[in-house]
Structures are given as structure tokens and as C-alpha cells.
């Protein structure tokens, strides 16, 4: 009799354990994912920090690229100016009648 009674309790006990596991632990896991967990789950907390540091890097790269374009343009401008001046000089210093 005792064995039968015990076996009747095993099913509900397992079900309860599963319920706790699926609800309680699930919520905990969800909380960790949101970055509200313990410091040991720091990966969740480091996410926003990584994003925050990436933005200035991207901005810096974009500004560097603009600067490089402008440097190249200025160099070409300088050389074009030298060539234009050389053309003017040739025309004015010559002795073409």
C-alpha cells in the first residue's frame, strides 16, 4: 500500500519540479539576458559598453576618410597650380613674335 501511495505522488512531484524549472529558471534566464543579472553574467552588461565605444571609432574613421580625401584634393590642387603657373611663365618669358 505504501509503495502504491508513493508512486502516486511521484507524478505530481515531477510535474511540479518541471513547472518550477520552466517558470522560475526561465524568468531568471530572461532577466540575465536583459542585463539585470548578477555581475557574474557580465557579458550582458558589457554589451552596451562595447556599443558605446564603437561609435567614436566609426566617427573617427569617417572623419579620417574625409581628411584623406581633402589631403589628396589639396595635393592635386597644388600640383595643378604649379602646372598652370609654368604654362603662364612659358608664354610670358618666351620671345615669340
Amino acid at each position, binding site marked *: 500500500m505504501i509503495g502504491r501511495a508513493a508512486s502516486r505522488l511521484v507524478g505530481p512531484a515531477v510535474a511540479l519540479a518541471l513547472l518550477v524549472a520552466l517558470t522560475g529558471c526561465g524568468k531568471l534566464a530572461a532577466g540575465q539576458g536583459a542585463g539585470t543579472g548578477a555581475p557574474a553574467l557580465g557579458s550582458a552588461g558589457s554589451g552596451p559598453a562595447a556599443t558605446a565605444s564603437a561609435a567614436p571609432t566609426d566617427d573617427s574613421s569617417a572623419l579620417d576618410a574625409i581628411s584623406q580625401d581633402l589631403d589628396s584634393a589639396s595635393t592635386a590642387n597644388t600640383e595643378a597650380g604649379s602646372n*598652370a603657373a609654368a604654362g603662364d611663365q*612659358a608664354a610670358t618669358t618666351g*620671345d615669340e*613674335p
Partner: protein
Amino acid sequence: MFRIITVAAAAGALTLGSLACAAPALASTADGTPTPTAHSSLSAIQQAGAAATSKRIASLTTGIGKVNATTKLSAADKSTVLGTLNGDLSAMQGLQSKIAADTDAATAWTDYRSIFTQYRVYAVALPQSYIAAAADGLTDTAIPKLQSAASKISAAFASHPDKVTPDLQAKLADMQAKTADAASKTSGLAASALAVTPAGYNANHAVLTDDRAAVRAALADTKAAAQDGRAILAALK
């Protein structure tokens, strides 16, 4: 060949008398050598011929070196320019020898005049080469880089609207307008300059004036556009 034919045609259209009138009788060349006339002695013409050809040989040699060194001329334009300058260099060397060997003043005078009328080293060959180099430098490098910078600045404005002021927007608009204006002014400019021939100059001494002005104006535009870009960049940093 085209150059020779056109020059020969122009030379044929001009009489020796008109050429003689074109040269001031008592003038002197830039290096102090007396400018001969059709009535000058053989030795005077030979002396002036030696000076004029030597001067051009030196300038052409320098110019050829610069053209070979530059990375701004397009391959096609560099080929055209080097063809002209090397051809003129060879011609000047040939004329130098021929004038020195001439035995009568009339022949020496004709050869001497051809230094100018057939080649126009200072009036056409060198200026057109430098104009083409300047135009190609703007077209192939300066303008594309300015367009690229303006595009990136627009993207930066979109990413950081909080940093965009009406003044920065106006500078970007000016940068884009100046770059577009420079592109318009340099479109076909190198080809136009390189198409000028000594015969064209003989007929119209101002034949390169518009091209020279266009490259100057385009250069002013690209410099102003670069300044706009620098000012915007400083504000964004």
C-alpha cells in the same frame, strides 16, 4: 603629320615680307641677342638662331622631364604631350645645326623664322602641355576627391544631425557647387588645349587664352571647395 601639314599651310599663307614686318627691326630677344631681320647678315641670323634654338632645347628638355615625372597627366594626354615636345626638341636640334650650316642669309632667315612660326615652343607647345597637366590633375584627382569628401560629409551630417548648423550646411552646398563648377570648366579642357597648333596661334595669338583662364578658374573653385571641406571637418571633430 597633321601638325606639319597645318603648319606648312599656315606658313604658305604668310609671305616672307609679312613675317619680316612682324619682327621689330631694332628689338632684341629675351636673352639679349639682337633680333635679326630679313636684311640681317648671315652671321647675325646664325647667332640669333643658335640662341633661340638653344633656349628652346633647354626648355623642352626640362618640360619633357616634368611630363615624364608627373602622375597627373592621363596616359593618352601624356603620350600626346610627349609626342609634341619630343618632336619639337628634335626639330630645334635639327634647325640649330641647319642654321649654323646655312651659307646664305635668305635661307638662314627662312630657317630662323621657322623656329617660331612652325613650332611655337613658348607660345603653344609648353603652355598647352602645362594646361593639360593642370586640367587632368583637377579632373582625375582633385574633383573626384572633393566629390568623395562631400559625399562622406553628407553621411556624417545624417549620422549626427545635432552637429549640423545652417553654416555647415551652407559650406557643404558651396563645396558641392564649386566642385561641380570646376568639373564643368575642366570638361574637355585638356583636349581643347592640346588641339591648339602653331598655325592656330599664328592666326590668333589669343587662341590659348580661354583655356588658360578656364584652368585658373577651375583651380580657384577646387581650392575654395577644399577650404569648405576643411572648415566642415574642423567643426565635426
